[in-house]
């Protein structure tokens, strides 16, 4: 038994989850890489986060109309023992971005995220069929206004363009016929729930409002209903390619933005081919695709090749600081923080979702990222600083270089360049070695550790996952 390189474990946990603490990495590094991957892909091996405790502290969560779900979701991301389940729920939210901003029914928006979580690692056909029945999506793309004889194309178009195949793989006529196949797919009006708001809506199929005439879709003809359309879509190689590229962009390395995909080739065609093969052979099993992805060399070699999404930055930083382990106050600030960095959960900018990679960064969002991370690590009593005080004081004193190395390791920011490393060491040099021999000395060393952590998480390198 040889275990796994700590750097590789850290990489896997940043991508398949939201990062890991030093203690977690130490424990995982004792195990074989493929076994860690299997645990991630089999979330049922671990207990799910308990929602009851959160609800006792965050009473507002009990109001299903409250805007608190993103904050609770972030709390789950920080604490879950099933990180890939939560990461995939976020992936589906990226791929099927639905804005609660348009909906007047927040409970349905929250149920949608719960569906994404339940289907985190399902097969793509199940995922699309549940999506087509999801009241928040039906409302968001106006399928409730898609009637027999008066089709509304919004859902039909986006299903093909943005959710499954991508531009260039179907015609305008396929869109019209897909829309017709989904006529009559709507939802129930939500039932009032006293004293709070209402229950979530439920899917409703109105046979009377369904266009049962013959339709031709992607070369096949029949009196198709919505499920038939999805069954045809998931057989297409275009679907396998589109989903593979999304997974690659989300888990491996930053691709160009989605609208360029029909004429800009993938960064790594072999990687896409591997994922497409996994899709076609397994009939769209996400677990099979992710197993191929995480165990591949292209994944293992892609360290720090992605700009962290705001959610990754926020959750990863909170984990490093050791915060939010309990339902403490301040959780709504976490949701506001990702929104300020350009990723409001349940509030994607458009149905096309978020632009990723370099486009996460501009002057405004960089400011938000830096300020958030700096604020999270300001407290000298936070786990991040406390543990470093413990380890650095073991040697009696610590040099500026030891300080920098320990803080780089603690933040997982092992990609710091030589220039950055020298700048950090030089900034710590005028104050000399850290000492821990008196309470005052320990306190002052703790403050220096916190400052060093703050400088590292405000660096360029820290922006990469």
């Amino acid at each position: 038994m040889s275990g796994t390189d700590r750097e590789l474990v850290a990489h896997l946990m940043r991508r398949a989850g939201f990062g890991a603490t030093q203690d977690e990495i130490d424990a995982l590094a004792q195990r074989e890489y493929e076994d860690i991957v299997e645990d991630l892909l089999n979330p049922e091996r671990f207990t799910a986060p308990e929602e009851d405790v959160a609800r006792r502290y965050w009473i507002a969560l009990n109001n299903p109309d409250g805007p608190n779900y993103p904050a609770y979701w972030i709390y789950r991301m920080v604490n879950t023992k099933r990180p890939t389940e939560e990461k995939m729920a976020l992936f589906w939210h990226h791929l099927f971005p639905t804005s609660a901003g348009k909906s007047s029914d927040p409970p349905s928006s929250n149920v949608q995220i719960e569906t994404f979580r339940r289907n985190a690692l399902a097969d793509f056909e199940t995922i699309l069929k549940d999506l087509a029945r999801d009241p928040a999506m039906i409302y968001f793309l106006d399928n409730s206004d898609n009637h027999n004889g008066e089709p509304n194309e919004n859902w039909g178009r986006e299903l093909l363009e943005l959710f499954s195949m991508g531009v260039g793989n179907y015609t305008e006529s396929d869109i019209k016929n897909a829309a017709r196949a989904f006529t009559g797919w709507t939802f129930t009006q939500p039932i009032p729930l006293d004293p709070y708001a209402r229950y979530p809506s439920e899917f409703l199929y109105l046979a009377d409002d369904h266009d049962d005439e013959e339709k031709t879709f992607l070369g096949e003809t029949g009196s198709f209903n919505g499920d038939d359309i999805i069954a045809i879509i998931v057989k297409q190689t275009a679907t396998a390619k589109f989903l593979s590229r999304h997974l690659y962009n989300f888990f491996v390395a930053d691709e160009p933005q989605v609208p360029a995909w029909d004429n800009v080739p993938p960064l790594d065609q072999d990687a896409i081919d591997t994922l497409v093969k996994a899709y076609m052979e397994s009939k769209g099993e996400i677990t099979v695709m992710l197993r191929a992805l995480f165990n591949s060399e292209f994944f293992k070699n892609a360290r720090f090749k992605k700009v962290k999404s705001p959610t990754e930055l926020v959750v990863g930083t909170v984990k490093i600081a050791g915060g939010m382990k309990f339902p403490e106050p301040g959780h709504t600030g976490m949701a506001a923080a990702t929104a300020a960095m350009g990723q409001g959960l349940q509030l994607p900018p458009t149905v096309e979702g978020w632009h990723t990679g370099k486009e996460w960064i501009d002057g405004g969002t960089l400011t938000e990222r830096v300020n958030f991370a700096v604020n999270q690590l300001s407290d000298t009593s936070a786990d991040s600083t406390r543990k470093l005080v413990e380890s650095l004081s073991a040697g009696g004193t610590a040099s500026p270089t030891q300080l920098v190395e320990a803080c780089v390791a603690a933040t997982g920011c092992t990609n710091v360049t030589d220039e950055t490393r020298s700048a950090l060491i030089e900034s710590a040099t005028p104050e000399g070695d850290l000492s821990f021999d008196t309470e005052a000395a320990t306190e002052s060393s703790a403050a220096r550790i916190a400052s060093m952590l703050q400088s590292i998480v405000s660096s360029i390198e820290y922006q990469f996952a």
Partner: protein
Amino acid sequence: MVTTNGKAPTLVVVQLAGGNDFMNTVIPYSNGLYYDYRPTVRIAEETILPINDELGFNPNFGALKEMYDAGNMAIIQGVGYENSSRSHFRGMDIWHTCEPNEVATEGWVGKTIRELDPSGDNSLTAINFGRGLPRSMVANGATATSIGDLDTYGLMTGVQAEQQRTQALDLFQRIYTPAIGTGPVQQYLAQTGVDVLRGAEILKKGIAPYSSDVEYADNPIAQSLRDVSRVHIADVGTRIFYAHHGGYDTHANEVPTHPKLLGDLSGAINDFFQDLRDHNASENVVMLVFTEFGRRVQDNHSGTDHGAGGGAFVIGDRVNGGLHGAYPSLNLKDLEFGDLRHTYDFRGLYATLLEQWMGVDASPIVGGTYEQLPLLSRA
């Protein structure tokens, strides 16, 4: 070009996201076809604010009609392009990059910034208010600032002790000094970090003295335009401002939602220009209001689907107000797959603003020569 208040011409771009329904904004109220096509999503004739015998404004556009009546608002009718994309993503991309046939990475505003400030000396040359830069403002070598909250803009603002903050900022500056040999994304990050540092200091000083008698409404577009006003009045060298107004994708429930958006927009723009006039700062400002496409001519009994040709507005003291271009025909045979056929290419509109207002050669920016409109009068 110099304006009579001695200041450089400035452009404010307001992007209406989702596809504004031009037919319910500037309404062909005396055309019977309008009522045939719009059995549900129609504006009652008696509430329309007439512009002439054929066209009238949405009743919620009253504040802008005042500006129109004063001769400060141009309506550009039928703006669009050949084979209009019905996709938001692609449609907005085409408007941003002036490139309908392939996916381009550089935007028209970004290229203009590069002309105005070729060595990127002032990161405040162009400012976006909102989260994330729009594609239109991105171009290699162009620096632009994006501000979420003008009042808290700055780095390490949570570090309390002044000395500690200064040290942290010094170290930040050193770490973010663009280094040769790192990747393009790293270099972009480095430049962004340095720009933020400098821009934040200048803005903080600049906006401090602002005060105004105008009470902006509490809605996103009014608050964004208030921020534009504060920075414009601060006079920190900004030539292009960019603001967003979302929610125009009215497939459903258009009757109550669309007029509300137009009311917010109209009030915000009127307040904005009033604020500028009060500060003797309006004369060098021209505003462009655009959207990615118009909406389907026929309603879907609740809203309208994605369409093609639409309309834009150009507003300001130096604007030749009135109707420009031709309202697209509503006759069935003239429609493009059920949508208004554009009568004027949007790249001509950009070229007009770039050449007649900003004093920049337009053809390399918009990718060719397009018909310009007589929209602006020089001093």
